[in-house]
């Protein structure tokens, strides 16, 4: 517990059980210093710790017991890993005497977590606890952030294990010797390579049609200001990836919106026609660079990333700079003159679609999001699940700061949103948190409504209820000959009654007017609320490019 306080941890998410009893017993003594949030399920706790980390920029902490407790975390750990979110997962395992004997609730937790974490630690000696804890937090937050798992044997956590311990505040111990020792040379405050930066400046000077991509690295590195300055000085269109949401203001005159499979025409055409593509903190996933061979085929591609292993992984590049987005962009901004790319901008920017929802007698997704955008506070945090509603939310809402959009972009975890919203609300009590979900995703983890109610969190859940797994149906409509195999969700529960059963407010909206009305009520009601928005089953996310196709081969306009 002292080690957690060292790291200035004041909130943890988790679920107790047999092997972790010792830790919870100690937590009882520390309850005035460390606030534990009990969820309905370990998966919810894992997403909550992740949402907390993404929205606050601090390291999230999540507890679970051995065996099923640990395996229930795995989806959450993988989600955090794919989206580079710093979370320390703490599990306990059976005692040393029972290890490896298929004991009750025993599983090889570190073995399971190895491929989905930056590092795992199995603690067999109480004396090593302080070091392991410091290292774990340092590793989670250092470089490219990510999840770390510590598995304590039960006997190690016993109260009779006395250890030598001295409190060291994290600013002194993080990034210090223990972590530096892991690198092969003793680098102090490493800096990006100035020559690499100069090379890029030369490339920029020769470019006529530059395009910028704002990736998740801008968000995770909190480099939004530096990125904005860079974009404005370069005077180039900016495409934003799903993970880059919040790294560049959604309503900025230079933004062309999302890029990739559901990217805007402006972004995708710009990508195809640009002569210099600068991607910041973006790994060119298969949802962005659908067809690596034709991706930005006329352009010199430059990648700026903190993780060297991302260079040339998915798309071959012409140049790269290794460094945190903040450091590299600062170095670039210091030396770069103001450019004007008027002709290029005038070619690309008018391709942007009008962003006003059309009138319609029935409620449309864009109308729902327009109500949220205009009625919710501008700095409201939005947590989404995965699917059509996710794409619509990212297209039609505007995000202006890192941590405002919480979405499972890499792993695509259905059921992520509610847990993430709980974590975000815990970490940002002064902000409004809105959970945008679909009926399929919501059903997966809606039991966390009890957590929303118990802790009095004013989270508004907006369900895009079209009675189907919309994104899968969209593929079935377009690619699988309208054979809707097992995607129709013509079943309960009644989400309004469900909300009420959990002690929350439940609303339903079938028209725009109703949506405006119930959203205002939900904002004012003071408790958590669920709004069931009834939508047409055949609404589609537009535009769309099929997986593996060149980025301008639109299947749908």
């Amino acid at each position, binding site marked *: 517990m002292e080690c957690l306080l060292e790291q200035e941890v004041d909130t943890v998410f988790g679920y107790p059980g047999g092997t972790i009893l010792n830790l919870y017993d100690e937590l009882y003594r520390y309850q005035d210093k460390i606030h534990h949030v009990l969820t309905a399920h370990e998966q919810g706790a894992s997403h909550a710790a992740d949402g907390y980390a993404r929205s606050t920029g601090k390291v999230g902490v999540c507890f679970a017991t051995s065996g099923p407790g640990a395996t229930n975390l795995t989806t959450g750990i993988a989600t955090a890993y794919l989206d580079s979110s710093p979370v320390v997962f703490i599990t306990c395992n059976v005692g040393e005497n029972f290890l490896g004997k298929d004991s009750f609730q025993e599983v090889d937790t570190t073995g399971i977590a190895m491929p989905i974490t930056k590092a795992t630690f199995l603690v067999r000696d109480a004396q090593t606890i302080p070091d392991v804890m410091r290292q774990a937090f340092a590793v989670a937050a250092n470089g490219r952030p990510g999840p770390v798992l510590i598995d304590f044997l039960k006997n190690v956590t016993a109260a009779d294990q006395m250890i030598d311990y001295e409190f060291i505040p994290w600013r002194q111990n993080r990034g210090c010797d223990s972590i530096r020792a*892991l690198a092969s040379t003793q680098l102090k405050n490493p800096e990006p390579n100035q020559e690499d930066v100069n090379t890029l400046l030369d490339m920029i000077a020769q470019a006529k049609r530059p395009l910028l991509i704002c990736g998740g690295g801008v968000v995770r590195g909190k480099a939004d200001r530096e990125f904005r300055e860079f974009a404005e000085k370069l005077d180039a269109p900016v495409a934003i990836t799903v993970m880059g949401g919040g790294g560049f203001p959604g309503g900025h005159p230079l933004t062309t919106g999302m890029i990739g499979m559901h990217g805007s025409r402006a972004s995708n055409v710009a990508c195809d026609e640009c002569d210099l593509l600068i991607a910041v903190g973006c790994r060119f996933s298969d949802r962005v660079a659908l067809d690596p061979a034709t991706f930005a085929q006329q352009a010199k591609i430059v990648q700026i990333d903190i993780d060297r292993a991302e260079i040339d992984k998915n798309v071959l590049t012409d140049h790269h700079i290794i460094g945190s987005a903040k450091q590299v962009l600062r170095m670039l901004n210091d030396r770069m003159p103001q450019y004007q790319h008027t002709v290029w901008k005038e070619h690309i920017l008018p391709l942007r679609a009008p962003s006003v929802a059309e009138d319609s007698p029935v409620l449309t997704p864009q109308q729902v999001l327009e109500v949220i955008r205009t009625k919710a506070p501008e700095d409201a945090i939005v947590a989404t699940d995965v699917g059509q509603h996710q794409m619509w939310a990212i297209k039609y809402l505007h995000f202006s700061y890192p941590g405002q959009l919480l979405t499972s972009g890499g792993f695509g975890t259905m059921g992520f949103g509610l847990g993430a919203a709980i974590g975000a609300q815990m970490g940002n009590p002064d902000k409004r948190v809105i959970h945008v979900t679909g009926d399929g995703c919501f059903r997966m983890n809606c039991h966390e409504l009890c957590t929303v109610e118990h802790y009095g969190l004013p989270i508004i859940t907006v369900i895009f209820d079209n009675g189907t797994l919309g994104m899968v149906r969209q593929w079935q409509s377009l690619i699988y000959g309208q054979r809707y195999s097992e995607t129709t969700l013509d079943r309960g529960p009644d989400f309004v009654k469900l909300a009420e059963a959990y002690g929350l407010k439940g609303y339903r909206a079938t028209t725009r007017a109703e949506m405006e009305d119930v959203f205002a009520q939900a904002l004012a009601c003071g408790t958590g609320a669920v709004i069931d928005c009834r939508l047409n089953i055949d609404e589609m996310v537009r535009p769309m490019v099929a997986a593996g196709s060149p980025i301008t081969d639109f299947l749908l306009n």
Partner: protein
Amino acid sequence: MKKQFNTERKLYTLCILADDSPGILSQVARLFSRKGYNIESIVSGATDRPGVARISIEIIADELMIDQIAAQCRKLLPVKAVKILDEDTCIRREIAFIKVAAADRAAREEAIQIANIFHAKVIDVSRDSLTLWVFGSQSKSDALIDMLSDFGILEIAKTGTIAIERGRSTIYDDNKLKEEYDYGKNVL
């Protein structure tokens, strides 16, 4: 300029220096299994630096494939250095123990003669068997095994291949690539 990768599949040796921490071998090995690649041989041993192990892995791959795996290896926190070696740049050796049937004196003598040609040594002998020790390239031990197969091979134990670069340069040498990976492990 975009990097050009050689698409020819050939035998590469990946040499990895890593902290001798629990699980390091499985951490490295899973990078191969994840992509469905088969490891030809894997050897782990001590180095001149305490607490640091050297893992040598042989794999048949093309350049892009081996480059990607090396990148994922370099990213692992306990890994200090990685070097990709191929036939032209390194020396490779392995040791094999070969137990052959040798029913009578004539067979024994003939087997020993063959062993001498290959500079193999007899390390154990019994009335009806002979165990040989051969050190060298993989092709050498393969050739010996082939010659001895007429006698009847009872058992073979191989160490797997270790490799080292030709010339003065070592795996410890600093270079820009290494600096770039270290950056990711160090910056806060």
